């Protein structure tokens, strides 16, 4: 349990504190992990196979201390993963990431896929808004009972998805016409800021990876 907790502290909490996003990180990360956390807690606390120390009994179901300990360990690991992902999302601009990857030799096409995927979301939301407004103007009820709302989803989701697929061909042609498929390196307009502290942090994390893996393998970090 100690290992994941130390990891969360060093690799997630402290960097988030330095970046000034700790409260947003905790909020987002907890919200993301809440459904899985609840199920992990319930299953392990009440049904842990090796549980002997009884904490609580509800009829035939027994909550055990061993199950609780195991659930907390799993939760710490989940938090380490979700916290790291959330921190990455909160402090990294997709365009900067893609640009830097491309600067370091990663294929522009690969970067494009990653960046376009992120930037497609607002466009899809905008399209969905327009289609919802159009469907409402044609009498679609999107504000009634849950059943009515559920029925209203189909005429909105269908055109959003089909419209996006239909645009793919023209989008592809536009990219080709703008030389995107040209082999070789593109000229990049700018380079993201990369301070000495950031470089130091990257090297530290990179070196920490084999050290932690070795510590885990030797049993020093449980």
């Amino acid at each position, binding site marked *: 349990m100690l290992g994941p907790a130390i990891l969360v502290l060093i690799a997630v909490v402290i960097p988030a504190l330095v970046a000034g996003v700790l409260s947003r990180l905790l909020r987002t990360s907890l919200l993301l992990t809440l459904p899985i956390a609840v199920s992990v807690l319930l299953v392990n606390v009440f049904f842990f196979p090796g549980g002997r120390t009884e904490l609580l009994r509800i009829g035939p179901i027994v909550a055990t201390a061993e199950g609780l300990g195991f659930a907390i360990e799993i939760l710490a690991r989940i938090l380490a993963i979700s916290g790291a992902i959330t921190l990455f999302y909160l402090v990294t601009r997709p365009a900067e990431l893609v640009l830097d990857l491309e600067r370091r030799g990663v294929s522009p096409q690969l970067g494009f896929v990653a960046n376009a995927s992120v*930037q497609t979301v607002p466009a899809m939301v905008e399209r969905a808004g327009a289609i919802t407004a159009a469907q409402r103007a044609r009498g679609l009820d999107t504000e009634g009972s849950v059943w009515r709302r559920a029925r209203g989803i189909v005429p909105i989701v269908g055109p959003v998805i089909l419209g996006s697929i239909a645009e793919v061909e023209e989008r592809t042609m536009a990219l080709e016409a703008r030389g995107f498929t040209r082999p070789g390196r593109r000229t990049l307009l700018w380079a993201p800021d990369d301070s000495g502290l950031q470089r130091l942090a990257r090297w530290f994390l990179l070196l920490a990876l084999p050290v932690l893996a070795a510590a885990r393998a030797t049993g020093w970090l449980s």
Partner: protein
Amino acid sequence: MTLTLEKVSYRYAGAATPSLRDIDIALRDGEVLGLVGASESGKTTLCLVASGLAPRTVGGRLTGRVLLDGKDIEAARIHELAGRIGIAFQNPATQRSGVTETVFEEVAFGPMNLGQPLDEILERTSSALRALRIEELAPRDPGQLSGGQQQLVAIAGLLAMAPSHLVLDEPTAQLDPAGTTLVGDAIAQLALDGTSILLVEHKTDLLARVCSRVIALEAGRVAMEGAAPDVLSDPRLGQLGVAEPALVRLRRMAEGAGLDPARLERAEASV
């Protein structure tokens, strides 16, 4: 430097009939060739064929030849054509790269892909923004612009690539009169600089202003071809589903009302 279509016919994959039949067009340096026709007459298909995107990206079957400066474009790879033939589509949203955060980067996207030197990219981008008078949009998010602004940005992106041939498929479809005038000015300037332009437009006033020749398509065939003033004042244009320019309509009405055509021509000249 010419873009030539020789006896070009084209059929989309799975289509029962060809969308283009026996098209012969030669687009010379500095020439603006207008293309009109009703919906489904083959205008957009002709744009795709002339730019080399059909059939290689769209699929389908092409017969005849498309020549760029005397060489069959089938031999060239699509990215090799990118710096030589530019194409603008009707829908500005699909022309956005989707990966840039500012209009400046969006306009620079094409030259960046072509690996041009940074100084040249900056100069071309600024120049393209200036040509369409949208410098003030440079720092803005391209995804947050109006349809008309997006179309101007898309055209600026083409101008920045400085192709020798431009294919514009209804570039002013989403533009207001001021935006249409700006695009017309840019087209006229590009033609003066030697760029040849194939311009598909429903706004025949714009064609009358910038085109030297006009072709009218009907069911994939060339139905009319000639000097812009002749084609655009031909009464048969209406039968092809094309509205005649306002000045032509005005002249016809004036003649119908018994007004002196000479006076009208003097008025036209002053316009």
